[in-house]
């Protein structure tokens, strides 16, 4: 059992980093469906240029998302979807063409402790114990009230995107260089979308994000145990359970839950 948990923790590191990034972005009022593409881009970037390549790729995707949704005021859902397709198509194409120049795999996994210990503390402090975090959350609650206090909500949304890009960059690095030997097509495999679910499951809090990731991660890790025990049928239902729970959470069945008020809303 212990080994299952250890396996789950390491295997869910990229997921957790995505959850943390998406948490910050959603707190600032955006639903970034493109986190899936951002992770895939980061994994691709990592396979070429290590951590810096990964972060650069994630920043690029975050920049496009901000450009379309904050500057051009395009719909966040549409933009996120388009960016996912863009990255999926782009990386698959480029991967075939570039004949995998793979960066060195990571020997010592420093990203896992960062994801599970350092980042949660930093984010919790930033969001709930600094004036900057207060304003970032205000951008996600009520951009008009924020403007009335002479702040620019757009600036804080950009800041949130930048934080997400760094975290997802680390996630991509872990995925491509710690868990595998380089890039593979569509290797993000839906983790970005799962991250979106975990943010809801965790009720837009840091603690909830960790708990949610652990639950989703353990459910995923158990499938191997169940498969090994020749109980292969049940694990699909097991995998569905966290989503059912998340759905119930979203409906407030398990008590009060509230998305940031301005989540998904444009700034105009």
């Amino acid at each position, binding site marked *: 059992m212990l080994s299952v948990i250890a396996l789950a923790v390491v295997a869910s590191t990229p997921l957790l980093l995505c959850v943390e990034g998406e948490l910050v972005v959603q707190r600032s009022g955006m639903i970034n469906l493109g986190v899936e593409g951002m992770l895939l881009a980061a994994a691709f970037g990592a396979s070429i240029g290590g951590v810096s390549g990964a972060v650069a790729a994630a920043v690029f995707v975050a920049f496009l998302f901000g450009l379309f949704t904050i500057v051009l005021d395009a719909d966040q859902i549409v933009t996120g979807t388009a960016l996912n397709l863009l990255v999926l198509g782009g990386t698959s194409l480029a991967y075939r063409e570039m004949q995998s120049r793979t960066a060195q795999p990571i020997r010592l996994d420093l990203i896992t402790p960062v994801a599970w210990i350092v980042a949660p503390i930093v984010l919790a*402090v930033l969001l*709930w*114990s*600094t*004036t*900057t975090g*207060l*304003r970032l*959350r*205000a951008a996600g*609650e*009520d951009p*008009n*009230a*924020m403007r*009335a*206090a002479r*702040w620019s909500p757009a600036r804080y949304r950009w800041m949130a995107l930048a934080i997400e890009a760094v975290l997802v960059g680390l996630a991509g690095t872990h995925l491509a260089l710690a868990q595998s030997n380089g890039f593979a097509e569509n290797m993000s495999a839906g983790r970005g979308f799962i991250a979106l679910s975990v943010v809801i499951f965790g009720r837009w809090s840091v603690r909830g994000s960790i708990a949610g990731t652990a639950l989703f991660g353990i459910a995923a890790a158990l499938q191997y145990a169940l498969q090994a025990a020749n109980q292969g049928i049940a694990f699909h239902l097991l995998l569905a359970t966290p989503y059912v729970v998340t759905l119930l959470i979203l409906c407030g069945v398990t008590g009060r839950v*509230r998305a940031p*008020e301005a989540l998904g809303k444009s700034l105009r």
Partner: protein
Amino acid sequence: MGPTTRAMLSLRGITKSFGATRAADDVTFSVGSGEIVGLIGENGAGKTTLMRIVAGEMAADSGEIVAPPRIGMVHQHFALVSHFSIAENLALASERDFRFVSSHRLEREAETTIRESGIDLPDVSRRASDLSVGERAKLELIKAVTSDPELLILDEPTSVLTPIECAGLFRLMRRLAASGTTIVFISHKIPEVMEVAERLVVMRRGEVVADTSAPGLTADEIAETMVGGVDAGFSRQRESKPRTPAPPLLAIVGVAGNGQRELAETLRGANTAFIPEDRANALIAEMTIAENIALRNGRRGARERAERLIESYRIKATGPGQLAGTLSGGNQQKVVLARELDRRPKLLIASEPTRGLDIEATRFVHEQLRRAADDGAEVLLITSDLGEAFKLADAIQVIYRGKLSPRMSREEAATRVAKLMAGIA
């Protein structure tokens, strides 16, 4: 302004137009340091526009302003983040830098700020959404006061306060004034303004029509100047019809914000014809005239019906296929009227049906409301335009702070309505 005080705010010939309406028309007055001035008038008289110009939120078309650099303005619509605590809302408004703050420390600082402001607002960990409207108004006021403004503009701060809360607010205003803050207090409630302000400036249709720094005006006289035109409307009355128990056309008059919207919402049933005050959402701009009409009546024969209604309601349009959003305001209102009246409703609620319309369109809307009533519908006209009420209604009731006065005949109303609207009767 008294001879001993220095002018803190002075306006000369301020003019501002929105399309054809003049929100401010050659406004000139000045306010001395430490003075409390009540700026009163009906909704739409131009008070808020004028003060937004002063606060620099809006530019005047012409005129000169001399205003101090630090101006605090409390808006009629609160700018609070509803899921933030009192402490967080205060920090959002006043903190300008990055620093670490635990929520505990934020709350202690908020308590200090509040204590210094002299306003009583306990338990700063409560969320803005859990506060009463009165408490929210206090929080807005605290936000404005903490920046230590030289000029404080309060836009209808009492409209949501209980009498006790009002008294507290007035004490605070006097204290601020005594320490040199100039206060402009926008309101439409004469008794309150008279209680706290040393001086009253009355606006009507963008113009300053009275200023009590020229002394000797009584409350009654101010009420008359504020609403204006009652006598004129009354003298043009139609021949009165015999009274029926339920008058076919009943007008509910009152200054906006006294519960009219809530009243309309409660009375609105599924089969009530409704002409909303919310003009921007009355029609679907992206749809054609015919489609908007068909929303009620169905698509069958919609085009023919639309053509007939365009004809009989004299709607200026290229045809049933014109997009509703491209029509003028008056013609949009005619489309709404046509759609709602064509169903021959039993009950029609019209809320501010002529606000913003030109004379011709206004006359047309009045004719149609009257005709609907004569044809047997019950018409409820909710309006802040007294002239309109007196011209059309068979009976009048006044709404003030959510309460309705007894039903009055027009003759009876003529003598009492201004005071009832201002809350001094």
